[in-house]
């Protein structure tokens, strides 16, 4: 029998560019899931993704009800006042049942698990964010080049969310 060469995933480098709850959780679960398998993981927070690590904003993220075909509701309905808050509460309730923590606690879990958390320098400049505005567990602020450099080596993968 022909032997297949096995090349396991060694490191997941995730780029989070959005701050809707579904995107943030997808990113966090991928990063945490990697650590659970003994795979290294890092997250680069850029553009709106920075909201997920902005102290004042991270517990107030929402699900998008407009422009999200999976909500299965007419776009106009999704834009009604209170609709986004309602959908967000429903999603948070369901997640709590599945033992998925709120954003702040999830970030603490990731930090404890050894996931590296990085802010994007350019996006921080653009949104006038300082390091003090971001979570204390942040590992640092990087340029794109710095982040690519961290993805070197066989078995590293970069995923854009």
């Amino acid at each position, binding site marked *: 029998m022909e032997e297949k060469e096995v090349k396991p995933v060694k490191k997941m480098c995730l780029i989070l560019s959005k701050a809707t709850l579904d995107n943030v959780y997808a990113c966090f*679960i991928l990063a945490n899931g990697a650590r659970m*398998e003994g795979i290294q993981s890092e997250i680069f927070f850029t553009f709106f993704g920075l909201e997920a690590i902005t102290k004042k904003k991270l517990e107030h993220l929402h699900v998008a009800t407009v422009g999200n075909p999976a909500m299965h509701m007419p776009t106009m309905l999704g834009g009604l006042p209170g609709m986004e808050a309602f959908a967000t509460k429903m999603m948070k309730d369901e997640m709590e049942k599945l033992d998925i923590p709120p954003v702040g606690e999830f970030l603490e879990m990731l930090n404890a698990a050894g996931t590296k958390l990085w802010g994007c320098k350019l996006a921080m400049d653009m949104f006038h964010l300082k390091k003090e505005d971001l979570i204390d567990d942040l590992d640092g602020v990087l340029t794109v080049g710095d982040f690519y450099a961290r993805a070197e080596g066989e078995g590293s993968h970069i995923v854009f969310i």
Partner: protein
Amino acid sequence: MKYKMEKMIANQNINLNEEGYLTDLNQWNKEVALELAKEANIEMTDKHWEVVDFLQQSHKNDTILSIRRVGKSGVVDIKQFYQLFPNGPLKTSSKIAGIPKPVCCI
């Protein structure tokens, strides 16, 4: 067909599944655990045994295990859990504890 295998661990015939997890917790004892820990390059300390005990109790109570649950167990926090069982803490500790592989992503 369910894949099964028998392996001599600590001079006992132990039933394992294809990923090396015990299929019968009744076959588990400390000698078997020590042998499984050795295969995972882990030297068992009192803290390791406390975690193993917590996992087995949770399994008996049909609690679905997750890293978050272990972190809230009062036995270890998440950081310590990763330090005790560095390569995939929940999987490794479950294997040593003789319980099935957890099917959880958190």
